[in-house]
């Protein structure tokens, strides 16, 4: 409890140099995760492989998504700069540390988001651009202000985190069929226990910043642990749906079962022995779970 909490993302430590500051401002590890889910959505929405998968269109989708996501992350840091200044984990970010000014950040963030959405709209299509805009809007206009008001912010944050694969689907399929929403359900259910674990590990920081994450308002941790279990069970059920609807085959089903139960057991660990160690295990298990699940999903797609 008294030792420093590990940072879940490598953007906590102060960095030197403009490039490093811009990377921290854009939360590149998070953007990389967004890009991964966009790419997975694209590949699952496209029936072909290789050249037939439309690599050029995928490149346009990723480029537009990259810029839009970077813009959203930067603007999020602008909105949260006061809170970031009060948290040990985020104190060293470029805005609270004063290495980048607010006007510059607003300019870079707005330009990046606008360019990303315009690129997507012109090179990919209006549906993908609309979903990308909706993702940024939910993240910036609903989730970010909710963080200081209600612990339900985690659920809203999960919506914005689950939308990127729909961008990929919209780009490749030109529509949002049931299989797209299946992927949305998987991502949504994954986000909640993941962010509950993050919030648990940094609950003192969040409390200092006035952000009412569930582990902050639930000092015993029982409600957080229970919710983590329920969402991992929901994730297990959602992760089987791609096979049930014929999007993936039995190899994916087997992987989803094994990975899903591993995550459920990690969440149960938090119920049995609430504490930082169990929360860290859940966090790390979740980080391993998602890329593996998505990789098998793409490999065994039908």
């Amino acid at each position: 409890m008294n030792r420093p909490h590990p940072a879940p993302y490598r953007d906590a430590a102060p960095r030197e140099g403009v490039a490093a500051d811009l990377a921290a401002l854009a939360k590149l590890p998070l953007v990389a995760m967004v890009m991964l889910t966009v790419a997975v959505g694209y590949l699952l929405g496209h029936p072909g492989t290789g050249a037939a998968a439309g690599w050029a269109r995928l490149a346009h989708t990723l480029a537009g998504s990259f810029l839009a996501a970077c813009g959203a992350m930067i603007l999020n840091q602008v909105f949260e700069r006061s809170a970031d200044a009060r948290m040990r984990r985020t104190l060293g970010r470029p805005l609270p540390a004063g290495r980048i000014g607010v006007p510059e950040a607003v300019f870079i963030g707005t330009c990046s988001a606008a360019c990303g959405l315009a690129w997507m709209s012109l090179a990919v299509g209006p549906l993908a651009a609309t979903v990308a805009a909706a993702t940024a809007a939910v993240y910036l206009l609903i989730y970010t202000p909710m963080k200081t008001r209600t612990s339900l912010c985690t659920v809203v944050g999960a919506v914005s985190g689950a939308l990127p694969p729909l961008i990929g689907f919209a780009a490749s399929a030109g529509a949002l069929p049931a299989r797209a929403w299946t992927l949305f359900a998987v991502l949504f259910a994954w986000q909640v226990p993941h962010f509950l674990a993050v919030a648990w590990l940094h609950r003192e920081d969040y409390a200092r910043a006035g952000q009412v994450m569930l582990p902050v308002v639930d000092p015993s941790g029982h409600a957080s642990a229970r919710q983590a279990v329920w969402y991992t069970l929901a994730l297990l059920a959602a992760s089987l749906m791609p096979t049930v609807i014929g999007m993936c085959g039995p190899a994916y089903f087997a992987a989803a079962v094994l990975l899903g139960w591993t995550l459920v057991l990690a969440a149960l660990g938090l119920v049995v022995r609430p504490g930082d160690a169990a929360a860290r295990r859940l966090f790390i298990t979740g980080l391993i779970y998602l890329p593996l699940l998505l990789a098998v999903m793409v490999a065994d797609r039908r």
Partner: protein
Amino acid sequence: MPEAGSADPRIAGERPRDATWIHRLALTVLAGTFLLILAGGNVTSKDAGLAVPDWPLSFGSVNPAGWTRQPYVRDEHGHRLIGAAVGLLVTALLVGVLIRDSRGPAKALAAALWLGIALQGLMGGLRVTEKSVHLAMVHGVFAQVVFCMVTAVATITSPRWRRIGAGVEPVWTASPSQDRALRLLPLLMTACLFVQLVLGVILRHRGSSWIPHAAWAMVVMLALLAGSYAIMSHPRARHELSYGAVALLLLGGVQLLLGLVTLMIVVHMTSPVPATTAQAVVPTLHLGVGAVLLAMSVHVAMVAWRLTSAPAGPAESRT
């Protein structure tokens, strides 16, 4: 699972030596029935059910010459011989219980088991003479019902059952909700396992989609977790039945892995006849572990029920 050993000497009115051999005979029947289920599963896995076309004799003989040299005939006739041996053992068990066990429920269970095994044999024979897939499915499901009945007899004749019912244990104070959970969750678990068994039999005999069976496995795993939790959170059950909770979780994990391996193996089969040893052995192993899991669940549900309804003992109170 039910255990062998001498009956508790503190229990008045019982004959420890008789109780012990009856229980040991029940355990022998349990092992024989398990072997019978594996043999039956092997017959289904290899699609060898009609390798011997007549019944009750095999090719007009009790033991046809050279039956061990033809693989499918060996599987089917071997299954019949094991079945006959189990039938004799069950008859001996019924006689033993009727003569030496004074308890009505034990006698009733043993009699029901004898009727069950006779009916099971009859269904197996009719499945051959009528060439009926539906009867084969009912035969497959009822095999597990019989295995559960043997488990019930082995449990009710066990020293543990008698000791719990005699009220010689200390009083373990549990809340009404803990008692209710211990009574109901293992029953729910058993029901979930039985549904899973039926889905598995339909899958094996009809070749229908594997998805309902695989998806229900998740519900079964949840039920196993809930049942184990009910045991471990109940003071008296934690003392008496923790082995059951551990066994259920271990068997559940093994069964889940076996199921996934079976899925990966069977999904590539283009014909109902297995082309490799793995295609024949792994599904049978999956069926066998499933049977043990169901039997363990029945045993746990019975002991859990007993624990919540047995009289309190005279010793000191514990929590």
